[in-house]
């Protein structure tokens, strides 16, 4: 019995967040290099917070407000971001793999050098978002609002842009399928 409890405690310690980091974040509006794995931060107002190099793996961040937050080089692997706000947030160098970002607001967000693999951006609002050098693979941008967004040095061939708004979206040095190429032209996107 004691052995089982010990294993459970060790497991919890190894794979979940540090409560002290959540307390620091809520009190000081900043927590760099912090551990928020598995944490439930859903619905919190974290606008303008300094959260660089933090770990949000498996966290619940749905409807959380990260307006203008600095989240550079953070890990969001497998996190739930549905309805969250990352308006003008800095996510550069972050890992956004296997995330659910349905109806998430990335307006004007910096997503440069991010890793976006097997993720769901369905119906996201990503006007003027910057995806320069992002490693995008097998990601669903269906019905996303990507107007005036900037794709530079990306490979979108195995991702979906179906029904996405691509008005004045810039695709510079981006690998596309023929079907995507035709759709971008219909949508008045800009291919360079």
């Amino acid at each position: 019995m004691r052995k089982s409890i010990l294993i459970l405690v060790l497991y919890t310690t190894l794979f979940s967040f540090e409560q002290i980091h959540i307390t620091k974040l809520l009190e000081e509006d900043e927590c760099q290099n912090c551990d928020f794995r598995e944490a439930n931060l859903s619905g919190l107002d974290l606008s303008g917070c300094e959260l660089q190099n933090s770990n949000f793996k498996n966290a619940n961040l749905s409807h959380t407000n990260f307006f203008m937050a600095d989240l550079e080089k953070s890990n969001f692997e497998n996190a739930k971001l549905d309805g969250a706000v990352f308006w003008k947030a800095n996510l550069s160098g972050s890992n956004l793999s296997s995330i659910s970002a349905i109806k998430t607001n990335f307006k004007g967000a910096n997503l440069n050098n991010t890793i976006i693999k097997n993720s769901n951006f369905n119906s996201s609002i990503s006007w003027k978002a910057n995806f320069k050098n992002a490693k995008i693979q097998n990601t669903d941008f269906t019905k996303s609002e990507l107007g005036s967004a900037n794709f530079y040095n990306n490979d979108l061939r195995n991702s979906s842009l179906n029904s996405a708004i691509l008005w004045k979206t810039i695709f510079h040095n981006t690998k596309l399928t023929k079907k995507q190429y035709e759709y971008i032209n219909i949508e008045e996107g800009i291919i360079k």
Partner: protein
Amino acid sequence: MRILLSIIFSFLTLLATPISKDIDFINIYKDVKNTEKITLMIYTTKSCPQCAYMKQKVFKDKFIKNILDEHFSILQKDVQVDELPDGFKYFGIPTIFFIDKDANKLGEFIGSCRAKEFSHKLKEIIKKAKN
């Protein structure tokens, strides 16, 4: 930062006047052909791509344009330049307010969408105005 924004917002709210006294709103209904129309007031800025999409693409869609011409008068407010009327707060831009000639708010729409979806919103507002 949040405190500063709250102070600025509270200060601007104190300065605001009701839409019924807004000079642009008054001018719309001075024109006889607009008396039965609904005012579509859009909050915008010069650097807002979503606003540009709504104004340059959606409002100019053939089907939408016909509805707008027949039932609506458009009033634009640049949130960084113009004085905004009291009672018409916004969180993000574009925000579109629908107002009847008696200055009653009939509804609002935040963000952007395709013409087809916007046509449903317009029809809903027209129906509401008639009731």
